């Protein structure tokens, strides 16, 4: 023996064994395993919850949580495989029902298992980051049953087949559908989406792609849209009945795309039933449907809008450029108004008063109304017509009001508002002087509207016209009050018009008959006596007169113009006069004289003079006789002047020219205003700014602006920059 080998006593550390029973886990698990089997067999009534709970509690307490969890998962898998087999074996229509029944069983069992293992859920699961029992049970169901190769495809196909049958009009068991999709949702939104929603959307897309193809060949636009609307409603109902609410938007998108987006152009442009047809025939219901449906499609509304706009522009252009229509301005404007009413109604009824549609409509009207440069004149004439006679039929204030409002709408579209002002002034002057305004109220109303639209400047002259008339009345009263006594001679009524406010042409005064001259001179004396430092000129081209005439034994009262009166008065002393004599005696300008003689001699039924030779036109060598054979049924005869209501071509040219002249100072003023604040500016900016400033009144032509700038440079208001020739400088 080696003495060095010492026996070192080995001291075993004392180990305190906590766990006494080595089979503790297996015994406990057996208890739980049996219980779970009973639960799946619907035989749970014999189980004691408290005992099972305590068993599971003890297992977790003794650190067997992990093993317990694994065992449980294994156990559940076994049960689920059995259930899966039963579901697979189910035939045909019973498949879904079997699946549903098994699912209900599983959920029920899972709830009870969760109850037993509640303590593990509370303590072991959070610290070990595992899936809680119930959720884990659902995952296993998903993997072992729903996604098993023999069930997965069959389940999706069955669901889609049922939906297809429902789309074709069959009745299906919606409760079963709802329960099945609900099961998929409970398994997690990704299961629902992957296993049902996505294939469902794909199948729906191909279904609707096919249907829309068929439908578009067969139906007209209106019917097609009706069908689309019906399908959308069906799908939304389907979702609400047995799908997840989130699917609603997705399926709606599919239908929108397949039934609407893809066929949008073709639907709109469909011959005899497309958008244009609906617009022409006022198909409000179809248009509403179209508006509502294409709200869902990108570019849907903008396409409708641009199609509508181009249609309005096109028809409008035909309307305003049709020479046939230009003959009757009142009818022309009435047609515009009708058109406007028509589309306003469409926008308000069918397009839910959509602002963008209103704007498109306004832009289109503005476009085509300004295509015809006589529009301002015609609109003024239309107002003239309405205010002169009052609206036909019920001429009450409110009707006039609405007509005026509508006219104002057209007025807003006008680019050349100053041209309108010119004409309106002329027409108003005529109305006022001839006393033919139907209602003072309506006239003033119109003025107020123009004023609110265009500002004080626009109407100040028009307003002063009204004031003039008012003062004239007062003046006449005071004149006749002073003139009391001598009432035998002719009476005159004078209207004193402020120069500048009225559209007067400087005209050579004619020679008035001595009887009239006397009274007028009296008036002149009276007027100048009361008003100091004024000048009074007679505007004989605008007045009118009532004269009494005797033809044989018939007495007639003739209503004639001042010029006509002058001519007729010459025949008091003689029966025959030549054109030359008349011209000499009256000194009426030849154009006016010819016109007035024409109306006295050439109009059938009102020919108080006879002309030699008998022809339509007046020539310098003609002679005129007093026509004592003139007769009329009426005592009072109105001899009209041959005055075109519309302007004649040269007049038009002249008005245009005057407008152009009037614009010049306005443009210049605008340029100076802008340059004064900016000091230095380049050409293009000036043009844009001027256009912006003036567009409320008219649209200035850039060429004209350029000319005005040049003129201002000449007059040394502006100069070109020495370095950069495009720049202008303001010279203070």
């Amino acid at each position: 023996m080696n003495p060095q080998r010492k026996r070192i006593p080995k001291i075993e550390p004392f180990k305190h064994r906590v766990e006494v029973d080595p089979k503790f886990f297996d015994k406990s698990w057996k208890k739980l395993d049996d219980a779970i089997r009973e639960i799946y067999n619907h035989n749970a009534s014999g189980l004691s919850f408290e005992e099972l709970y305590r068993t599971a509690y003890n297992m977790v307490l003794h650190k067997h949580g992990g093993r317990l969890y694994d065992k449980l998962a294994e156990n559940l898998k076994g049960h689920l495989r059995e259930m899966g087999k039963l579901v697979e074996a189910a035939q045909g229509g019973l498949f879904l029902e079997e699946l549903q029944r098994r699912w209900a069983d599983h959920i029920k069992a899972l709830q009870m298992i969760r109850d037993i293992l509640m303590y593990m859920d509370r303590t072991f699961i959070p610290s070990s980051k595992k899936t809680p029992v119930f959720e884990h049970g659902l995952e296993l169901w998903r993997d072992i049953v729903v996604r098993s190769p023999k069930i997965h495809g069959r389940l999706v196909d069955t669901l889609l087949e049922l939906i297809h049958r429902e789309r074709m009009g069959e009745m299906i068991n919606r409760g079963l559908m709802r329960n099945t999709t609900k099961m998929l949702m409970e398994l997690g939104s990704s299961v629902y989406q992957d296993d049902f929603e996505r294939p469902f959307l794909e199948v729906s897309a191909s279904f609707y792609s096919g249907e829309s193809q068929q439908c578009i060949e067969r139906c007209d636009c209106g019917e097609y849209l009706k069908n689309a609307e019906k399908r959308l409603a069906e799908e939304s109902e389907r979702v609400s009945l047995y799908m997840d609410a989130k699917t609603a938007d997705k399926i709606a998108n599919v239908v929108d795309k397949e039934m609407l987006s893809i066929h949008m152009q073709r639907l709109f442009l469909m011959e005899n039933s497309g958008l244009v047809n609906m617009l022409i025939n006022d198909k409000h219901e179809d248009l509403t449907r179209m508006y509502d449906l294409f709200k869902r499609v990108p570019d849907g509304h903008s396409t409708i809008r641009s199609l509508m706009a181009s249609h309005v522009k096109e028809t409008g252009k035909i309307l305003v450029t049709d020479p046939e229509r230009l003959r009757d301005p009142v009818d022309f404007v009435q047609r515009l108004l009708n058109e406007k009413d028509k589309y306003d109604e469409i926008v308000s009824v069918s397009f839910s008063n959509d602002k963008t549609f209103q704007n498109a409509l306004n832009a289109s009207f503005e476009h085509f109304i300004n295509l015809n440069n006589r529009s301002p004149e015609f609109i003024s004439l239309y107002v003239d017509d309405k205010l002169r006679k009052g609206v036909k039929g019920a001429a009450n204030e409110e009707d006039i009001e609405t007509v005026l409002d509508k006219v104002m709408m057209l007025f807003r579209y006008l680019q050349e508002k100053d041209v309108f002002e010119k004409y309106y002034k002329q027409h108003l002057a005529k109305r006022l002087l001839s006393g033919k305004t139907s209602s003072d109220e309506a006239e003033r109303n119109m003025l107020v509207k123009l004023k609110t639209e265009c500002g004080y400047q626009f109407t100040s002259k028009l307003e002063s016209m009204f004031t003039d008339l008012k003062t004239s009345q007062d003046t006449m009263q005071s004149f006749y009050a002073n003139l009391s006594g001598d009432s035998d001679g002719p009476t005159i009524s004078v209207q004193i018009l402020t120069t500048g406010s009225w559209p007067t042409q400087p005209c050579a005064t004619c020679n008035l008959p001595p009887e009239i001259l006397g009274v007028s001179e009296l008036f002149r004396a009276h007027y100048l006596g009361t008003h100091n430092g004024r000048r009074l000129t007679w505007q004989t081209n605008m007045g009118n007169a009532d004269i009494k005439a005797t033809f044989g034994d018939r007495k007639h009262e003739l209503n004639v113009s001042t010029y006509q009166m002058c001519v007729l008065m010459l025949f008091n002393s003689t029966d025959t006069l030549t054109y030359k004599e008349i011209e000499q005696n009256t000194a009426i300008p030849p154009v006016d004289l010819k016109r007035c003689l024409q109306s006295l001699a050439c109009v059938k039924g009102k020919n108080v003079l006879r002309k030699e030779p008998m022809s339509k036109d007046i020539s310098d060598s003609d002679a005129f006789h007093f026509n004592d054979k003139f007769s009329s049924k009426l005592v009072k005869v109105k001899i009209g002047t041959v005055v075109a209501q519309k302007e004649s071509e040269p007049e038009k040219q002249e008005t245009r020219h005057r407008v152009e002249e009037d614009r010049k100072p306005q443009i210049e003023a605008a340029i100076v205003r802008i340059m004064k604040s900016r000091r230095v500016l380049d050409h293009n900016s000036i043009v844009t700014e001027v256009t912006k400033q003036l567009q409320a009144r008219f649209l200035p032509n850039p060429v004209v602006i350029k000319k005005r700038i040049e003129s201002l440079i000449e007059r040394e208001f502006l100069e070109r920059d020495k370095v950069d020739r495009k720049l202008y400088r303001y010279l203070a």
Partner: protein
Amino acid sequence: MCTPAPGGRGRGRVRLNVGGRVFQTTATTLAAAGRDTMLGAMLDASWNAAAAGDEADYFIDRDPACFAVLLDLLRTGGLHVPPHIPDAVLCREALYYGLLDRVRAARWDDFDGDRLRLAASVPGRAPGDGTAVRPAPDGGCCVAHGGAVRVYNWMLEERRPVYLDHAPVNDAAYLDASTLLVAARERPGRRDGGVAAFSALTGEMRHRFRVAHDRQVRSFTPGALAFDQECSIFASCKGRLNEYGIGVWDGTTGEQTGFFYEPPGCALGDADKLQWLDGTKTLMAATMFPRADSSFISLLDFRDKNVVWSWCDVGTPASLEDKHAVHAIAMEDGRSICVINQYDDLGFLDLRSSAGGVRWRSRSKLMSRKKVHAEETCYPKLATHAGQLFASTNDAISVFTGPDHALTSTLRGSDGGAICDFSIGGDRLFALHNEKNVFDVWETPPPPII
């Protein structure tokens, strides 16, 4: 979810035999526990399919004394524990029945600074000085000591501590009840430290937050931590190559989403206090004396990487020169920042104007310091909760209430020396004392019944 056993059985009366002692109660009382508790499940219809008879009879193999307390809790909503029942036993039994949350809720009321009661003092065992105490949302807390973070659940039982390379911990914060963020200093030449997320329950590391500059991952030393409502995580960072600033990570993915490099004149990388201001969607970053020579506070807008507001105490009058703001907190109304200096004076900064310095409260000296600590000074700290302002001054915490911040309470707990850090959360206030590393837990007792 509670389906009591079908009616008709003795009008819902239930007889329970708990460990030999018989209790009689009603199904309704037990149903108050909720379906997801042991008692709720036991009475559920699915477990009583076969039961018959007038009165339900159950046997529970547990301690009757504790059950009596818990049954009383279910009946009255109040918790009254006889002195002979240890807390741990009661909690264990409550956990068995699934009633632990109710016990916790019955223990203390919503936090009110003026009604606090010292609930416990937990002696510290860790070496080194405590740097921070942070509350968990459920009432637990963690204490950073040197290179470790000690974690306590709400029963103040210690869990497994958390380490990040055993590097000294600068700050810690709970992202949620089970996730703890730790910011640890990088030690020279070791490329350790940084910010990491741990499971508060097991102490395992879950994720390490990286900082990349120009797509290169770099090591860094984090200072303070903060988060916003959308679960972004902010940390003040000092990189090795003067990469100073504030890093931002997504709290869900853990990926870096941005880095606010500190502009010249703004000390951000050194910041020792970060606070997210929800009203203005800005982050307050405060770098205070004595970490820096002068105190600097700024509000940062991360949407356009902009310093919205800033204040610095450089250039204050000489008479005030030795007074430095040593801690700052943004008030809950988001309109001002409260600061405190080493003499415990409170001051306010107006966030609506960028000029204007600190308005120090006149006569705000709370109490004269008994003695100046020779080596280690604990500078005062601030906290806010539900309109109340808290300031730690030496070994006590002062509570200020109302719009004028009137002093309403003073909390003085263990004799563990000055308070080096304190925080409020999970309806509790935790105060960490410097000398013995003991921390005090203050909670609001339930109001008296009458």
